[in-house]
């Protein structure tokens, strides 16, 4: 898999958004935000890890994070469009292609 070219500025902005999501929606200021590379230039995958996901169904997790991104006026939509998928896990998992965490 080829490393994805996304500016550090956008990744930093997205990390801030997901940290705020963890804090405001999940009540977890310690949510872990990691990015993984995709095959597509200008696109990243996101892995969020928080024990608060434990009791949420798959679709609840997806709706929770996407509703936050779509309905929060502070979220920069251009930054949002670099995301090709968001995965959410209740505990840390190892994955291949990590950009940074």
């Amino acid at each position, binding site marked *: 898999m080829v490393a994805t070219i996304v500016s550090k500025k956008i990744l930093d902005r997205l990390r801030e958004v997901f940290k705020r999501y963890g804090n405001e929606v999940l009540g977890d200021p310690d949510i872990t935000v990691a990015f993984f590379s995709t095959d*597509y230039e200008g*696109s990243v995958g996101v892995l969020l890890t928080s024990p608060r996901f434990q009791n949420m*169904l*798959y679709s609840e997790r997806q*709706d929770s994070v996407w509703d936050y*991104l*779509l309905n929060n006026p502070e979220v920069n939509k251009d930054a*949002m*469009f670099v995301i*090709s998928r968001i995965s959410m896990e209740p505990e840390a998992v190892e994955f291949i292609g990590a950009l940074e965490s």
Partner: protein
Amino acid sequence: MVELTKFTPTYKAEFEQLARDRKEDFEALRDKGRWTASVYLGPYIVEARLKFKICEVLKLERLPAILKTHDLYALLIYAGLLDELKAMPNIFANFNRINDIHQEVAWRYKVAAPFHQVDSDKLNDWLFDSNDGVMTWLQL
């Protein structure tokens, strides 16, 4: 070496029919309360429809073999629809949700559970909502 001029054996018309077939399968599974399997199968409707769209855009009767992938994001790019999708944030979000299911290997091995009805109902919305459904946008 990647062979750029090879084609899959499946024809454009078959992908078009395949998308309709997988939609009927998705509905049949939901009618029978097979919620978990319906979530696993649902994203194939999008995959088949995008493969049809690629053949249409490239004016090809068969799909190029290099696009023999389950990656919806790749298929979206080669269907020439990425920018159009980015102009519609709600559908973009639904596409992302479906893409994560399709890439998530765990769904293949989940044991059937009644609480997956919630996930199946949500997937049904992400696919077929009259305003923001991905398949509504892809005209199926």
